[in-house]
């Protein structure tokens, strides 16, 4: 980043904080919408006594499990839909229907079906993850240029080699886009689920602070959400940049 960029970006953050600071106590009740420095102090206390880490890890652990399962299931289903006629006929109708049902709306059902413990959270995250992954994977697999497959056939590739060495690599940019979107969805899903039924996690932290009238804690939770989202997305990008760079060469931009 050059000096010009640093200047404007610092100014942007400063402006946002000032606006917040000014509006608390004028526009809003300072008890309900506390000023930033109060939140900062509270955040520091919660970090020092380990509470932040406890809730952050609770949410993160759920996302890791649910997202991993959802991604694998999503890729397999997407490949099946794109490559196997019966799978397409069997899975398209339910998928096309279910994709319209937002993950948040599925939470009460998840609780009814899987209880108040971890399984219902996993279900919500898997559900949030699987939809974008399936559709992107299917689109990627279907978009493999025909002549690329034909070229591989001429060069002696059998069915498996064509799939593993031609179709899948051609689809990676699509699949990765789906996985990145799904990562955001997974966090939305887990937070919503924790707000409705949980004893831990960032969503629980926020909901509890509202019920117990602890606005500093609520803001700390929101800050934490922003931070976790930012860090995981950057980590995702970094990992892709390292491991999958060669597959991204076929697309103009990925960022």
């Amino acid at each position, binding site marked *: 980043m050059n000096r010009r960029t640093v200047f404007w970006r610092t100014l942007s953050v400063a402006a946002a904080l000032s606006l917040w600071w000014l509006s608390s106590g004028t526009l809003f009740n300072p008890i309900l919408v506390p000023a930033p420095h109060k939140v900062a102090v509270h955040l520091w206390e919660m970090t020092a006594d380990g509470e932040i880490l406890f809730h952050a890890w609770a949410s993160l652990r759920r996302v890791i499990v649910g997202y991993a399962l959802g991604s694998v299931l999503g890729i397999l289903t997407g490949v099946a839909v794109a490559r196997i006629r019966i799978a397409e006929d069997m899975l398209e109708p339910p998928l096309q229907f279910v994709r319209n049902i937002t993950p948040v709306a599925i939470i009460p059902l998840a609780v009814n079906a899987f209880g108040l413990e971890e399984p219902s959270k996993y279900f919500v995250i898997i559900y949030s993850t699987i939809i974008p992954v399936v559709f992107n994977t299917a689109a990627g697999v279907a978009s493999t240029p025909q002549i690329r497959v034909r070229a591989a056939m*001429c060069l002696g590739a*059998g069915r498996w080699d064509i799939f593993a060495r031609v179709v899948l690599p051609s689809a990676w940019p699509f699949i990765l886009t789906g996985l990145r979107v799904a990562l955001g969805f997974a966090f939305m899903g887990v937070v919503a689920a924790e707000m409705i039924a949980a004893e831990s996690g960032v969503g629980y932290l926020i909901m509890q602070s509202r019920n117990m009238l602890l606005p500093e804690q609520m803001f700390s939770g929101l800050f934490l959400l922003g931070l976790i989202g930012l860090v995981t997305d950057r980590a995702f990008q970094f990992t892709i940049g390292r491991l999958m760079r060669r597959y991204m*060469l076929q697309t103009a931009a990925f960022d």
Partner: protein
Amino acid sequence: MSWRVLRLEGVGKDFTRADGGVAEVLRDVTLTVERGSFFTLLGPSGCGKSTLLNIVAGFEGATTGGASLDDKPVAGPGTDRTVIFQDVSNALFPWMNARENVEFGPKMARLGAGERKERADTYLRLVGLDADAGKFPFELSGGMKQRIQIARALANDPDILLMDEPFAALDAITKKHLQVEFRKIWSETGKTIFYITHDIFEALLLSTHLAVMTAGPKAGIKEVFQLDLAEPRSPSNPDFAAMYSRVETLIDEEVQRMRAR
């Protein structure tokens, strides 16, 4: 492996169109391509040249008749016939560098790393790109990419190269260089070439045999020539010029016929 002729016998091809109708593309195409020859197909746009090449490649089945190497019918794609596509950006594997692209065929043949490298070296050198082995397709010009595609095909040691307007998308100067180079590669490797072009000049420069197709639908073979032109071939040679106008007249006739319909 020791076939002598590629035969197309009574090849007809119909497609079912998207609207449910039938497109009658090819009718009774019969051709003989001798091993080692450079056989070029010319004809009006849309007459069915690519369709015919796809049948030889084994990508599509003929509706009637078929292609065979001596008496062995073509039943599907095989490593004895490799296609060189015009759309090289999609034909190459964008996530593999030049060397990895060239090694793909040998890898599919389960050759060891040593032999794969040796083959890649040989054919990258043959097309003059040994210094660019580590580059990815997006880093290469259209002409360089087409050389990689040729090297990739040759590294698999096929009997026949099936080439569908391989140089048509290149600029005039690159095209001229590649034509000259490719003719050299053909004479050095002794491969059989089945070649499609719209460019009469290119056809006369490269080919040993030339077939002109009639306009579609129900396209067939109008005339076949064996080209015994004076070497080095040049448009300033009288036999070259005479052949040029003869072929041009044949194609014009077909284009007129197509317009009249």
